[in-house]
């Protein structure tokens, strides 16, 4: 049975009037009920994409369906909560009044405010003015505002930004709780560890293009596996494997040979080395980390013409 999609884009493109191509031909699919990590370096086009999905930016071309409706339509907005780029509130109002304002705009009953504050652990400071809040507290209030509508889909841009370690753990737990409730979460981040711990699937964007998409495991396997060989004498071992495999698949670091081959070839390589009189003290597969894959993917892609990715001052990241 085909899985329903909470977010789906086809050829989504955003070119600013300045000519900067912030997002190019983006085909994204976020499945209902999953936590999807949107990864990319600064200026890759993450925030521009999230802005388009929230209806804040009009795409230059392409289409998107967000929570079953077109981005920015009342139906789509009713079903989603979003915190894009930075938690923006009225500095002269308290956190509580800010949520009242947001609730009124969203047509949400005021009775939803207390549970939302409780979810982000902000009850104690709710009556203080927003301008007195720390970055972490602003972030929490932003998430509370996104939760007010009790949405099916949450779009969170760098939700752990500015949070202390305790706050980061709590945010991670909150996201897991949201997933357990059956909600879909689309979050952007450049913190790979966070993404590995919270996301079911990830998409990697760089220079405005989606260069990879899949589960964490799939992403790790994209980088291929390396067979690590610790052997004596190492030179002889290197000559032997280079004779069988091309030179560019073999590297050496800290007395360990690294060979870009599939796991299935490990046994035959071991036999060959032993047969030629090489003492093999260690032979194991090394999986690349998400960080390695991320760096490979983002370094391969052509550089974007503008580091901001937002020609109009849009803080795309």
């Amino acid at each position, binding site marked *: 049975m085909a899985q329903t999609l909470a977010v789906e884009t086809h050829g989504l493109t955003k070119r600013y009037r300045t000519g900067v191509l912030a997002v190019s031909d983006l085909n994204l699919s976020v499945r209902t009920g999953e936590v999807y990590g949107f990864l990319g370096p600064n200026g890759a086009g993450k925030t521009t994409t999230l*802005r388009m999905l929230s209806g804040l930016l009009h795409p230059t071309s392409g289409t998107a369906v967000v929570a079953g409706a077109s981005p920015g339509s009342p139906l789509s907005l009713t079903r989603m909560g979003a915190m894009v780029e*930075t938690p923006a509130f*009225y500095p002269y*109002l308290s956190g509580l009044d800010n949520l009242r304002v947001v609730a009124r*705009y969203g047509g949400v009953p005021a009775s939803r405010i207390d549970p939302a504050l409780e979810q982000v652990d902000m009850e104690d400071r709710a009556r203080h003015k927003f301008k007195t809040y720390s970055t972490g507290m602003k972030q929490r209030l932003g998430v509370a505002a996104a939760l007010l509508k009790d949405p099916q889909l949450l779009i969170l841009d760098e939700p752990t930004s500015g949070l202390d370690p305790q706050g980061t753990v709590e945010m991670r737990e909150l996201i897991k709780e949201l997933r357990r409730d059956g909600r879909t979460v689309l979050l952007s981040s450049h913190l790979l560890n966070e993404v590995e711990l919270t996301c079911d699937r990830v998409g990697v964007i760089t220079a405005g293009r989606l260069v990879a998409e899949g589960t964490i495991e799939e992403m790790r396997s994209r980088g291929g596996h390396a067979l690590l060989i610790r052997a004596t004498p190492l030179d002889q071992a290197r000559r032997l494997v280079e004779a069988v495999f091309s030179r560019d698949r073999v590297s050496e670091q800290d007395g360990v040979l690294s060979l870009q081959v599939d796991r299935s070839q490990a046994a035959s390589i071991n036999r060959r080395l032993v047969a030629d009189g090489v003492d093999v003290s260690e032979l194991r597969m090394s999986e690349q980390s998400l960080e390695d894959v991320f760096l490979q993917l983002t370094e391969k892609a052509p550089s974007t013409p503008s580091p901001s990715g937002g020609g109009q001052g849009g803080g795309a990241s």
Partner: protein
Amino acid sequence: MIASYRAELLKSRKRWANWILFGILVVLLLAFGYVLSYVILTHPPRNFQSRIPASVLKRETFPENLLPNVFSSMTSLGAAIMIIMGGLSTASEYGWLTVQTILVQKPGRTSVLLGKLLNLAITTLLITIAVLAAAAVTSYILVSIDGSTSSWPSTTTLLKGFGALWLQLAVWTVFGMFLGIAFRSTAAAIGGGLTYLFVGEALVAQLLRDVSGVKEILKFLPGVNASAVNASFPLSYRGSEAGAPLVSAGRGVITLVVYLVIFTLLGLLIFQRRDVTGA
């Protein structure tokens, strides 16, 4: 739209800047338009020279001249305050980036802006009532202190004056709101609006009023048309021959309504179509 209006109401009610602007408006109106005028004209300096005696001039602070006296202050002071208030209502949303917080809630962009317009319309209405009431009370106190007699304008005249004042304040408020949307900057919106009001309208209109060709252009400016409307509420002791308006009061009202519609539609159009980018 009603949901947006309720949100706007909460924001504007709790915003000190709005109350301060309102306070400045009332205090300056009463201080300069009434109390100081009355004191100076009651005890004129020795070198006081005027075609009309001070004892007659001070009657501008009495109830019979409620409307023309309020209008003379509100033409520049009221317009300036309302441009600032209108500019703050929209430009601040861009400055604080709260526009994106609003727009990711349920109402569409049109509803958000219509809610803002409704709130500004009601705020302007309340300011109009408050200004006229404060001026009326002060003029009553002054005429009582003076021991003179004066009459109130007729109900019809009062209603017409009330409508004219509300219309003018609304036009300047929507002008400020439009500038806030167009510039997305509080400083640019307020600076641009006040520069237009005090340089574009007042200074240029005064200096170039008799230059051929310019006069025809002036007939289309909001300030000139507002002045024409104000001139239809003359002072009790002075004929309407003083500073004859460039257009009739009727044309003035129509032009102001057209400006109200144009600024509203332009604001809506820009707000609808423009991308909301970050800081």
